[in-house]
């Protein structure tokens, strides 16, 4: 870098081109400097320019890499866990609502399996609530998570009161269960839905940051520019000095090519992995989770209709609405989930879920017609016990298929996202080191030539 500050005509000038003397002192110093006529002066200028250019390139490349790597890191380390937490909270709470209702329906002596499932749901919701709260920080999801943390104990309290009253044979229990379910559906599930939506948005943003094209294009343009400058510099040097290519500049060129290749390969591979993670992982998982949550809501409706046994037919109306939304059929959640899961390991389970849903609706209609014709006890038995054609069994099949598909695609997501993130390992340091090698190569290559003028 020494050459930059030196006066243009500091070195002995033997090969000055005619008519290229600088203009008299009226011109600004910079212009004089740029119009340096002597070859050593030009060499100095070139040296300085190339070194600065290499360092700028290194900085830019490192910045772009760090953006992508932090996006990929965010996907794997923060957004995906938060999104998963959001989905799990939503799912566990929906399941708790459906399970509490069907367990209540069984009477004072609720099945132990239902009791355990409810307790597992609450424990799971609480655990994911805690880790989501830690991951969310001050993001918009924090407020909804606080609402969930405050509401969950109130909900469980009401469910336990319902159980206690039910156990005493008091009709008050049903009122507490309705109250609990209203809290769940009116406050907790909407908050869980918001958390899930915000986490998904964050995941999409992080994934976009890790795979987006604009930054990569800027880097490509910068790389092209650098390559062009290096090429022109060496050509000029060859013409001026009629010397072989200087080893320094060759090293710099090789380093430039290496870093460009490394970047291109890393970006392509990481982008492929992360897109794979999204298309065959998080996207089907989100679609399947939505379908599962809708199915759980309908299941709770089925039980609550039998518990409520009147008042109004709002729960059955809600069941029909959810059935319509869940599908299968064009534009429904299940069909969308099957489409999204196509080609993923969860595809088989997703298709099985669609078939199971249709069978469950048929069983549900049997339950309704039994209940509507006054055979409440038989209707309750179809919902709460297992057996061929029982609504309870068929729902379990639907829920089980969806859960299996979700688990399978979650593995796909995790594997690809982690692979995509790991591609960036060492890249940031690598491009910085390569940029320094390039700068050093340029410096050495040009200063060797410059020395020949001394």
């Amino acid at each position, binding site marked *: 870098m020494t050459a930059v500050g030196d006066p243009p005509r500091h070195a002995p000038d033997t090969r000055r081109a005619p008519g290229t003397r600088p203009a008299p002192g009226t011109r600004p110093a910079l212009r004089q400097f740029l119009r340096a006529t002597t070859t050593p002066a030009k060499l100095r200028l070139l040296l300085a320019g190339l070194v600065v250019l290499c360092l700028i390139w290194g900085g830019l490349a490192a910045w772009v890499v760090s953006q992508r790597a932090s996006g990929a890191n965010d996907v794997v380390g923060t957004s995906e866990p938060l999104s998963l937490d959001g989905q799990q909270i939503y799912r566990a709470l929906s399941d708790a609502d459906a399970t509490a209702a069907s367990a209540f329906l069984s009477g*004072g002596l609720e099945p132990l399996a239902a009791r355990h499932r409810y307790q597992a749901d609450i424990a799971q919701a609480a655990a994911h609530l805690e880790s989501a709260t830690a991951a969310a920080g001050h993001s918009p999801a924090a407020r909804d998570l606080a609402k969930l943390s405050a509401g969950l104990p109130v909900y469980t309290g009401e469910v336990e009161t319902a159980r206690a009253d039910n156990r005493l044979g008091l*009709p008050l229990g049903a*009122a507490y269960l309705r109250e609990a379910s209203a809290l769940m559906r009116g406050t907790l599930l909407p908050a869980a839905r918001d958390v899930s939506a915000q986490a998904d948005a964050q995941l999409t943003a992080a994934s976009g940051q890790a795979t987006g094209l604009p930054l990569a294009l800027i880097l490509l343009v910068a790389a092209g520019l650098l390559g062009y400058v290096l090429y022109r510099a060496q050509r000029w040097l060859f013409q001026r000095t009629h010397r072989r290519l200087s080893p320094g500049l060759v090293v710099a060129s090789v380093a430039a090519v290496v870093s460009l290749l490394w970047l291109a390969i890393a970006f392509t591979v990481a982008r492929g992995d992360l897109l794979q993670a999204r298309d065959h992982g998080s996207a089907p998982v989100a679609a399947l989770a939505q379908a599962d949550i809708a199915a759980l809501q309908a299941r709770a409706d089925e039980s609550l209709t039998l518990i409520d046994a009147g008042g109004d037919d709002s729960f059955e109306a809600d069941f029909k609405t959810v059935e319509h939304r869940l599908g299968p059929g064009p534009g429904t959640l299940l069909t969308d989930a099957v489409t999204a899961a196509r080609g993923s390991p969860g595809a088989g389970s997703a298709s099985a879920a669609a078939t199971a849903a249709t069978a469950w609706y048929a069983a549900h209609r049997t339950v309704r017609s039994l209940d509507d014709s006054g055979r409440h006890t038989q209707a309750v038995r179809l919902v709460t016990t297992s057996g061929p054609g029982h609504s309870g069994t068929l729902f379990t099949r639907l829920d089980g298929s969806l859960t299996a598909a979700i688990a399978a695609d979650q593995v796909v997501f995790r594997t690809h996202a982690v692979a995509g993130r790991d591609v960036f390992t060492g890249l940031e340091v690598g491009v910085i080191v390569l940029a320094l090698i390039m700068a050093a190569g340029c410096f050495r290559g040009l200063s060797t030539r410059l020395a020949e003028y001394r």
Partner: protein
Amino acid sequence: MKRPAWLRRPALLLMTLPVMGAVTAWAVPGSAAMTARPAQHPARPAAAAAGTTSCDPTASLRPAGPPRVAPGSFMAKIRARGYLIAGVDQSTYHFGYLNPLDGKIEGFDIDMVHAIAKAIFGNPDKVQFKAISDAQRIPDVRSGAVDIVAHTMTINCERLQQVDFSTVYFDAGQRVLVEANSPARSLADLGGKRVCATAGSTSIANIKAASSHPIPVAVPFWTDCLVLLQQGDVAAISTDDSILDGLAAQDPWTKIVGPRFTSEPYGLAISQQHPDFVRFVNAVLQQLRTNGQWAASYAHWVGTPVPAPPPAHYKA
């Protein structure tokens, strides 16, 4: 459905024998004896007195003898269908409630329905219970969604414009339920406080009309009121003592205070399209009054001592 209370508990039957004697003294089975009865219902409903429509609310259609399913009658249609459809309450302890222990709807109102099913089919269990809210009672009777409503339903002139009622089968009156440590003794002490009743009940109307201006809180079911009271969301529940008894029985830390301040005669609601069914039901009720079944149900669901059944009062 389990067997009627008087079959399961012979002791009840013995206990109620004196009552039955008293009943038989004034109403001998058979229409001839009944025609002689003058209108002498003890309490007139408050709503009737205050209402714009003046009527004799408790006067119902006279039965044409013992209950009989005539060909072409509405009862014949019900028989052809195979079951009676009754709109009932599922959350009023001791009157109409879903018993969590056996998953069946039971109570005093429900006994009335079983008796009517027995009169039509010879089998008290040929009933499809449709649990409905207070607010749904009149719409469901009018639309034909149910054949009959047995749902702690007060007969009054306003409702008589829309549906028909049987003779009075139970006499209730509105009182106030508070937590055991509450100083309130009546609605007069609850001015500005939140007081709960179900939407569409006469009770909520009476709370709104109270001169002390309590804040009425309307919910779908009576048990919802008790949830609100236990959670401290309302200061009191005010409705018929029959219903309050059932709520107090579910929470020993509550008490019923103050005197009855309204009279609420309960009737079974039937569509105005089916006067033949009203007469039929009145004939069934008259049998219950005289054969001791009414008293047995009362003793089982409400308790002892068992009063005389509300006398039948017919239109002139």
